């Protein structure tokens, strides 16, 4: 079980467990207040937050960058979708585990040649991967269902949960909220795992590799294994997020995972703050709001949402935000929150390693 020991945090896990648990419970409580439409937007944000977290871990903690996480999302989603299509009775947890494993394996396949690479090579390699995934899914029609994709059965609301709902559309409302709660709990588990990973032996080795790979090698860290591990974990998170996202959409189809999704993921990660849990949460929240946000901008500027400009507003806004954040606030929105947190801090602050961004 040495692999587990290397993933498990050496420090106490209680505070992190408490933090993630509180956030999960808070979000669950919010789903009870929100209308069903907002619930499903929140669920999408939770799924994307998992993917952002995986990407954030890769970029923030190992200094590598991937433009292929939309591809890994697709791999996870198709793995889950194809399995669920043939074995409809499989419990959801096993389907998710399958998505994680297959996502991780696809990451491993890409990582083996890529870990010899750095920076631009790796980014280009992963871009080539995610560019290939959509046409592949369209070509192998017999397995993937081609353009139309695979339809998934929507989740069944358990009886005890449905009892909370009454009145008009009770069944629909109950189902929307059950789905959202499930997504939030899944995200909570993923965040807890990552919180531990950040502070585990592997996490610290990863930071050392990022900051000074020569020093890391001298201290006995296996560079290529560490980089490969970072990549595999990132791909596994993307696989889980992709499977969850497709489950929410009740279909797995190629057009869910275009190349621009990788740009969106990158934007959300950078906006929130690279390499932090709260950054991924912020990214997920922004994703949930993005449709409303774009509609708001359109109405503020008087742009017709069905016009060409209105339809492409999201791409323009996200791209501009990504450039501006990287140029002027490369540590993201999290860095805005830091001075606020200092106001409430009574204990002397722990010294933290300098972040390289």
């Amino acid at each position, binding site marked *: 079980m040495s692999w587990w020991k290397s993933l498990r945090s050496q420090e106490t896990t209680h505070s992190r467990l408490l933090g993630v648990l509180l956030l999960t419970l808070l979000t669950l409580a919010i789903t009870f207040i929100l209308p069903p439409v907002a619930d499903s937007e929140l669920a999408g944000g939770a799924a994307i937050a998992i993917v952002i977290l995986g990407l954030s871990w890769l*970029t923030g903690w190992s*200094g590598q*960058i991937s*433009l292929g996480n939309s591809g890994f999302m697709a791999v996870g989603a198709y793995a889950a979708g194809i399995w669920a299509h043939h074995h409809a009775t499989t419990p959801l947890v096993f389907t998710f585990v399958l998505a994680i494993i297959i996502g991780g394996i696809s990451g491993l396949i890409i990582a083996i*040649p890529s870990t*010899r*690479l*750095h*920076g*631009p*090579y790796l*980014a*280009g*390699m992963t*871009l*080539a*991967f995610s*560019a*290939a995934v959509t*046409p*592949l899914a369209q*070509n*192998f029609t017999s397995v993937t269902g081609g353009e139309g994709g695979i339809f998934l059965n929507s989740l069944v609301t358990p009886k005890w949960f449905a009892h909370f709902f009454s009145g008009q559309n009770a069944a629909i409302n109950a189902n929307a909220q059950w789905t959202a709660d499930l997504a939030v709990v899944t995200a909570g588990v993923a965040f807890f795992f990552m919180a531990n990973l950040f502070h585990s032996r592997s996490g610290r080795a990863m930071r050392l590799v990022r900051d000074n*790979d*020569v020093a890391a090698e001298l201290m006995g860290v296996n560079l290529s294994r560490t980089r490969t591990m970072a990549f595999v974990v990132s791909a596994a998170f993307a696989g889980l997020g992709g499977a969850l996202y497709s489950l929410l959409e009740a279909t797995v189809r190629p057009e869910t995972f275009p*190349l*621009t999704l990788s*740009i969106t993921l*990158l*934007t959300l990660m*950078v906006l929130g703050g690279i390499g932090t849990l709260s950054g991924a949460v912020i990214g997920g929240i922004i994703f949930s709001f993005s449709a409303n946000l774009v509609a708001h901008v359109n109405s503020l500027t008087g742009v017709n949402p069905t016009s*060409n*400009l209105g*339809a*492409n*507003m*999201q*791409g*323009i806004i*996200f*791209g*501009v*935000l*990504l*450039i501006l954040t*990287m*140029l002027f606030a*490369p540590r993201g929105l999290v860095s805005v929150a830091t001075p606020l947190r200092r106001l409430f801090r009574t204990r002397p602050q722990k010294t933290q390693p300098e972040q*390289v*961004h």
Partner: protein
Amino acid sequence: MSAFLSSAFMHNIFGGLAQGVIYSLVALSLVIIWQSTHVLNFAQGAMAMFATYIGMSEIDRGVGYWWCVIISVVVGMALGGATERVLIRPLYGKPEINPIVVMVGFLGVLEALAAAIWTSTTRNITEPFSQIYFQSNGHLVFLSSFVIFQIVLAIGIMLFMAGLFRFTKLGLQLRASALAPEVSRLLGVRVSRMLTIGWILSAGVGSIAAVIIASGSFGLFPTNMDGIFVASFIAAAVGGLESPIGAVAGGLIIGLVEQFILAYWSPNVAPLSGIIILVIVLMIRPQGLFTKHTTRRV
């Protein structure tokens, strides 16, 4: 002879070469930027696409095709220079992922803007050359005047760039500031101006590739350079990213291999052909086929 020229094999050779020279051009433009500023420009294809849209929209106002080509290339070069000054210059000395992220953002902005302004439907430009294959003694020869134009123009641009870098004072200054910026500065080369000129030249080469692509059967649409960028990046990486000759050779290799996988194996796996080549090359020679030195920057 004409029977051989009209065989399926030659069809694939010509098709592969025609596609390959485009990859070579874009790969060459990536290498020029990489050599001068150590940035892999992910927006290279999108910048060229945007410039082509601006130039080719003039056709609607009755401007002749060749003037539109010139406008596209000039706009592309201006865009390249402006990008270096505004987006890339603040990031020198920052971690190498920062310029990547910024250029990915720029790619997203340009593609969304192009779709907003010119819609995402494919625009076919009635090119000045026929795409109908030649005939010789009743056999089809798989070359059209457009394919010949495409290959000749691409080779002409490559030779021009080679001459510029090899035989002119500007070329010497460009190479010097890429190789040893500090020394060049001491010797009176305006290094920062050279970096901008490198971006301008590179964007010009990219725009010519985009103009050729838009004039062919592929047409012009906001994401039309995505696949070409990916293939060209692979071409440049296969060549080693440092070597212009490697980029050109890499482009031709990718073009031919892609065509042959499409023809003889399965069109279904064709999207993977670039990755397969890249993985094989990187396993055997991680530094690329055409890089001489193997030292690694720490």
